[in-house]
């Protein structure tokens, strides 16, 4: 009995970590933008959705049209194409919808972001249709643990791939932010935007860079999820966006390690609640978790308290 429980528990941890990696990748885009210009980039979820479409199209083009057979090559090329085009989306969204509004009251860019989100969702819907698109799994198989006939823990290759790719990109981002010149400038921006500007750093370029980085990580998440779940539609961005934002707030918005932690916590909470409660209640649990964290620790798990100045 207890052995089965232990195995089931392990299975939920594996599922939760996979989902959590995806959330964490998207959450970083929210948290970086919020950390620097203090706005909620509502269109970020749609960026992720677009990247899933680009991923699907690239994979189809590579495998059916161009006849590339090697799976690692397909994967690398897809990631590269999706990151490139999605980053361009991130840059354009900032340029079109947010830059003209720099310095206006907080509600204004938020409305513009909601407008951008609605626009992108319908743009994809017009281009690709509203129905589900599914794709044949590219990477199948996995490992099974546990006794024959009893409950077996299943760890698919895809889940391992998601974890590995996420860790690679997270490490790269952490190194970039902590070691490079541009990363230092980014941190300076999040501390004091006006002062950084006065010190001769082109803050507009850095804000663009933040959007590009966020979009690139969302692109990674989009490609991975379309390979993992294999089913996409123009509406996946909204839900994933809210979840990822929840993850960012959970970890402490503005903090990059916080977004990673928040994503993992949220993924675990969801997979456990869908296993031990009803599947339909996983979203309720996710949002309740958000409300609870904000009530008892409004700055999130890793956020620094903010002092309101007169």
């Amino acid at each position, binding site marked *: 009995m207890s052995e089965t429980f232990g195995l089931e528990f392990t299975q939920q941890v594996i599922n939760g970590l996979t989902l959590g990696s995806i959330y964490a990748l998207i959450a970083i885009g929210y948290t970086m933008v919020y950390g620097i210009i*203090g706005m*909620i980039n509502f269109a970020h979820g749609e960026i992720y959705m*677009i990247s899933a*479409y*680009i991923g*699907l*199209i690239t994979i*189809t*083009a590579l495998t*059916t*049209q161009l006849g590339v057979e090697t799976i690692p090559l397909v994967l690398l090329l897809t990631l590269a194409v999706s990151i490139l*085009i999605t980053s*361009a*989306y991130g840059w354009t969204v900032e340029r079109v*919808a947010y830059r*003209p*509004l720099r310095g206006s*009251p*907080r*509600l*204004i*860019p*938020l*409305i*513009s972001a*909601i*407008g*951008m989100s*609605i*626009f*992108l*969702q*319908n*743009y*994809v819907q*017009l*281009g*690709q*249709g509203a129905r589900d*698109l*599914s*794709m*044949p799994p590219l990477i199948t198989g996995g490992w099974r643990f546990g006794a024959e006939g009893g409950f077996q823990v299943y760890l698919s290759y895809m889940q391992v791939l998601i974890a590995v790719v996420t860790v690679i990109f997270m490490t790269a981002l952490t190194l970039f932010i902590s070691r490079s010149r541009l990363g230092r400038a980014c941190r300076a921006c999040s501390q004091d935007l006006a002062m950084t500007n006065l010190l001769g750093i082109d803050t507009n370029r850095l804000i663009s860079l933040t959007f590009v980085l966020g979009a690139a990580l969302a692109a990674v998440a989009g490609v991975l999820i379309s390979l993992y779940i294999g089913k996409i539609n123009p509406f996946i961005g*909204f839900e994933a966006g*809210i979840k990822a934002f*929840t993850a960012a*707030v959970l970890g402490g918005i503005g903090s990059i390690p916080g977004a990673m932690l928040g994503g993992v916590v949220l993924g675990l909470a969801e997979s456990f609640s869908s296993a031990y409660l*009803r599947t*339909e*209640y996983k*979203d*309720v649990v996710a*949002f309740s978790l*958000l*409300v609870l964290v*904000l*009530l008892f620790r*409004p700055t999130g798990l890793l956020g620094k308290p903010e002092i*309101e100045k*007169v």
Partner: protein
Amino acid sequence: MPKPLPDALLMALLTGLLTLPIIGVQIRVEGINVLLEGDAGPVLLAMAAVFLARLFQVPLQAASGLIRLGQVLPTAERMASYRPALLTLLVMVAVVWPFTASRGAVDIATLALIYVMLGLGLNIVVGYAGLLDLGYVAFYAVGAYGYALLSLHFGLSFWECLPLCVLLAAATGCLLGFPVLRLRGDYLAIVTLGFGEIIRLLLNNLDELTGGPDGIGNIPKPTLFGLEFARRPSTEGGVTFHQFFGLEYSGGDTVIFLYLVALVMTLFILYVINRLIHMPVGRAWEALREDEIACRSLGLNPTVIKLSAFSLGASTAGFAGAFFAARQGFINPESFTFIESAIVLSIVVLGGMGSQIGVILAAVALTALPEAARQFAEYRMLIFGLVLMLMMIWRPQGLLPATRPRLELPQ
């Protein structure tokens, strides 16, 4: 300023890169085969448009400068003098409307009035108190489901349920507001967004109570002092409207009656809110929006004031929700998605936060325009998103900005 030609070329190339995978290539699934179909037309069109717009950016900007939106639309100060005349005109049009317009147009006007009510309610929360609420639709759902369930299980009529729904929504608002209102603005936005989603998910999953995704049907329509609007009375010995007055039965009467009920409800809300904002509590809302710390030091209790704004906004949504359920006769969780909250929020922001006339006009415009653009039905939401963005860039203060109460020192 970069050189126009290379800049325009670069932007056109970027457009091509962006649009190619989404509108240039379509995925077709045939059986187990996934095929790609290319169509270069829309991509080239988009590239050409961006190229021309960037190339002639300078003359285009000069031309648009001649017809500044800001000069066409009145400023906050000039608005103040128009206000009484505009309001009278609006009410007159609203009263005459059902007797001159077609049945479809009256039906759309009823829908517009629901949005006017929602907009006015959210205007208290966002416009006056400055609290960003992204889950406003939750209270709307509470009102709608409140009426549907009360009439289903207890057989209460619309007019009996209306105050109950208002109380129910206000109680929900207090329940949510009490713990979250001490949070800072952005957090409040997200918590309310999460709360809105929780309510919708619960409605979807509490099958025994709410009927789940199938919703609740056969919700009775409002009656006129007990007179039903139907061909035959639903109860034994009941009298319907047309029988009582000895008229020919006409389905149009119901539509007109519903419209008039909505109009009366809207005017009632408008009256209540107008009294409230001139009372100390209304002034406190605005003071709180401007500076919370100053308010605190003047001895105002921010939590109580925020809570009053929040629950009043919620009760207005409950009021509108009960009417919505009665008008539709059928409700399901699909009507209470986030996009609904976003539409109401954009009504408030497009109209001009804190400006009631602005909110009313924006609500009418946002309901009427999609109906007018029926032939572009599939582009409707696309255009809606675009309009939101453009409005924020061109006129962030809204169509008819509110006048703030102020005093100037004599020179």
